């Protein structure tokens, strides 16, 4: 029962962070709230008995994708803190909050008939590995081929451009 209450608290936190993410004017705060959303979703995964996926979510999404977004945000020039669309949207904060509250109530009502909102079946990492590398191995091979091709292509493009600018390794190129 406490587990269910804790799960509903996580759901509420997710919805409130999403509302904050959509509403906020400062883009770095938006990235921070997206981080909170991702962490809450990882907690939801943990409640659904798959810590494997919760940790993968934290490592890949919260650890790498948010870093990518922050690099993009902080390395580019931004003139005004908001665009016109965001100024329009920020007057309707209440709408988002009401919508999130209605969604939460819908979730509560939909899970009122169940004994528990969470399924408790556990899938071990060995099973996941089996299904990923035996049954879904076509997808894995396709992704590996794509990543390999793009890496080789990237290395080729960088090497081809390298002849046009000097690499300042250790104070001066070899052509001095």
């Amino acid at each position, binding site marked *: 029962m406490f587990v269910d209450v804790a799960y509903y608290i996580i759901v509420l936190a997710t919805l409130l962070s999403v509302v904050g993410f959509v509403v906020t004017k400062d883009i770095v705060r938006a990235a921070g709230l997206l981080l909170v959303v991702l962490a809450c*979703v990882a907690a939801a995964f943990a409640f659904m008995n*798959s810590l494997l*996926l919760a940790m993968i979510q934290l490592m890949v999404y919260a650890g790498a*994708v948010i870093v990518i977004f922050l690099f993009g945000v902080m390395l580019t020039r931004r*003139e005004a803190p908001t*665009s016109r669309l965001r100024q329009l949207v920020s007057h309707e904060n209440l709408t988002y909050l009401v919508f999130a509250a209605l969604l939460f109530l819908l979730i509560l009502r939909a899970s009122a008939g169940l004994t528990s909102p969470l399924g408790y079946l556990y899938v071990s990492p060995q099973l*996941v590995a089996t*299904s990923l590398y035996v049954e879904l191995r076509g997808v894995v091979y396709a992704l590996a081929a794509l990543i390999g091709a793009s890496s080789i292509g990237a290395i080729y493009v960088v090497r081809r451009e390298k002849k046009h600018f000097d690499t300042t390794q250790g104070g001066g190129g070899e052509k001095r």
Partner: protein
Amino acid sequence: MGIELIFNAANLNFVAYASTTGLAEGLSLAIISISIAAAEAAIGIAIVLLLDKLFKTVDVDKIKELKG
């Protein structure tokens, strides 16, 4: 950034199916979805940084021409 929200919603569904039916396909599809979303974020930042270099701004309202 909003795309990540959508990807997460889909992943929540995948993991919920995996935990209620006990099959591992849900988790496998969620892992594949996460990896594709990460690759797509990398492409997104490449585009954003190139836009900044070429047009000196990232405001999409100001980038009106196709010629780079």
